[in-house]
């Protein structure tokens, strides 16, 4: 009997194709919007999360120069106010597990006939642990390299690709390249980290010992000064304490009195990243919510058409009752029709939403995630909309008085 009713519902849908199609369209648009928006939102969330975990956890960066208020005052040109001794003092602080002074610059890299321009990071071996950066080939440099300023380098994936070609990690190790005309031995190749939150390629980089960078690449800097110091705290719970300790330590070391402008700034990278993740999550929710409104509108469209359909088919309902249909048979019949419209609309919507998401990812390179959960949610929401908005018209049909329905013209 249920299959007979399904067949009839299918038939009724086909009876007025244009109307069924238009009714369905509301559902199709709603569902495809939800699926697409969720795919984009979840993709954004995931790529943010990935950049955060690539960045390393519980991180601070201490920058030399006063905190930038309003972004106008940049400290470039001034001598860096931080130095390696500051870094050493920081590593003594309670809750700090790693400190790496960092100096940065640009360099022209040449290998054979290939050359490439990239960022060069001069730092200490701790940097690798702090950033959670592993090697895909070769070995990291050690503190003896930093001490004697040896000319060794770790290359990022992008650099390797441009100098040695694809999949040349192993080949690159042990080769001699030239950075700003000086020969360097490639010690290792960094594992790929992908993009940062703001879309920079983290693999387009070279890491060399701090002293090498200062003495042999960027020259004429005050010995021992650095622009940044990366600090890693032990856990989330000590982040606040460590931040305070860093500030007071540096204020003391730099002789800055209370209330005076400081010549450094401490930034909680993890907090910044987390708030970016939060923003992404909020955006994803918001997109979903906006898309859901169109689902609701689609549902109302279904209800509208079902009400019209019940009125139009009053006589049919009367006939069915006269030959023995129970209230629940009539209810089921109209409910099935509503559900069928919404489910077919939903399936088409999922199809369009998924292909839309794929197109978006192909054409914009943005990450999209089509999770089975989001498809399932869209599907069940659509089905419940069918039930919810189909119920009232169906009940209206079922409650008709048979003789009045038969008399209806």
């Amino acid at each position, binding site marked *: 009997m249920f299959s007979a009713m399904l067949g009839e519902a299918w038939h009724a849908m086909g009876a007025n194709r244009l109307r069924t199609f238009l009714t369905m369209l509301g559902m199709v648009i709603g569902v495809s919007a939800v699926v697409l928006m969720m795919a984009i939102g979840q993709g954004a969330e995931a790529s943010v999360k990935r950049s955060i975990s690539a960045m390393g956890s519980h991180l601070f960066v201490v920058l030399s120069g006063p905190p930038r208020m309003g972004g106008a005052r940049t400290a470039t040109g001034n001598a860096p106010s931080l130095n390696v001794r500051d870094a050493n003092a920081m590593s003594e602080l309670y809750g700090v597990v790693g400190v790496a002074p960092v100096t940065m610059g640009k360099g022209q890299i040449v290998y054979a006939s290939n050359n490439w321009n990239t960022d060069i990071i001069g730092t200490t071996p701790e940097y690798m642990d702090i950033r959670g950066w592993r090697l895909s080939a070769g070995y990291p440099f050690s503190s003896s390299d930093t001490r004697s300023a040896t000319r060794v380098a770790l290359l990022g994936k992008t650099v390797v690709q441009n100098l040695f070609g694809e999949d040349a990690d192993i080949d690159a190790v042990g080769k001699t390249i030239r950075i700003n005309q000086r020969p360097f031995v490639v010690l290792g190749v960094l594992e790929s980290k992908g993009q940062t939150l703001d879309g920079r390629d983290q693999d387009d980089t070279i890491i060399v010992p701090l002293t090498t960078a200062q003495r042999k690449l960027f020259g004429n800097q005050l010995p021992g000064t650095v622009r940044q110091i990366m600090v890693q705290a032990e856990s989330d719970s000590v982040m606040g304490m460590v931040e305070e300790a860093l500030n007071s330590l540096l204020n003391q070391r730099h002789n800055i009195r209370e209330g005076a402008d400081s010549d450094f700034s401490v930034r909680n990278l993890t907090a910044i990243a987390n708030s970016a993740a939060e923003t992404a999550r909020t955006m994803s929710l918001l997109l979903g919510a906006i898309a859901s409104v169109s689902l609701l509108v689609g549902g109302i469209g279904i209800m509208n058409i079902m009400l019209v359909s019940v009125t139009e088919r009053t006589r049919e309902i009367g006939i069915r009752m006269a030959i*023995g249909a129970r209230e629940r048979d009539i209810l089921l019949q109209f409910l099935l029709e509503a559900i069928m419209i919404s489910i077919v609309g939903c399936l088409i919507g999922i199809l369009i939403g998924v292909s839309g998401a794929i197109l978006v990812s192909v054409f914009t390179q943005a990450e999209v995630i089509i999770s089975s959960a989001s498809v399932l949610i869209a599907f069940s929401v659509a089905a419940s909309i069918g039930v919810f908005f189909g119920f009232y018209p169906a009940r209206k049909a079922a409650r008709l008085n048979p003789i009045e329905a038969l008399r209806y013209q």
Partner: protein
Amino acid sequence: MQQPVISVKHLYKAYRTSAGDFPVLKDVNLQVLRGDYVAIMGPSGSGKSTFMNILGCLDMPTAGSYVLDGYAVATMPADQVAKVRNQTIGFVFQGFNLLARASLLDNVALPLVYAGVSKEERHARARVLLEKVGLNKHMHSHPNQISGGQQQRVAIARALVNQPRLILADEPTGNLDSTTSEEIMAIFDCLNQEGITIVLVTHETDIAEHAKRQVRFLDGKIVQDTGASASSAENANV
């Protein structure tokens, strides 16, 4: 004594209109025994259709009792009433009342859907009945593709498909010419000979003469009943 299929006592029906209650049936009493063949006659507006709708459990009386096959219809739950409409009664309308969108076969088989019969059996039984009313060639046609007389045959086939004991027909020949009417009446005669109880409404005396018993309505009352036996009249006055 044989139990009547239909037993109606002191039946009243008033329509509720904006101008107040409008009485249509006023103290109607009727007993119909198994195998009976009753023609109800009477002027337009005398309440025949109203009475038939009550007999067919499509409408409820305002007062009085209607016992069908030993069961008081008024006390039945709605699903039970639906089952009675489905299995005990076959109703034939003046206006045929076929589903325009369904094929003749599906129209005839429709009551079986609500009886929970499987698809194969539904179609098999519907086919047998379409053959019985001489329409097996048109099985897959739609109602708008056949004549009024043929539509009424389909409606009769539909009324019979669940093997009811009682056929109720409100002016089954009202929309048909006299030749076609005779053909339809021949089917009813045949059904009655098979033992099915038939109550039909008609305006034409020659149609009414097919029946064994004629009942005449006037202004909501039965004024003449050729078959009113002593016992049923007695019952009616209880």
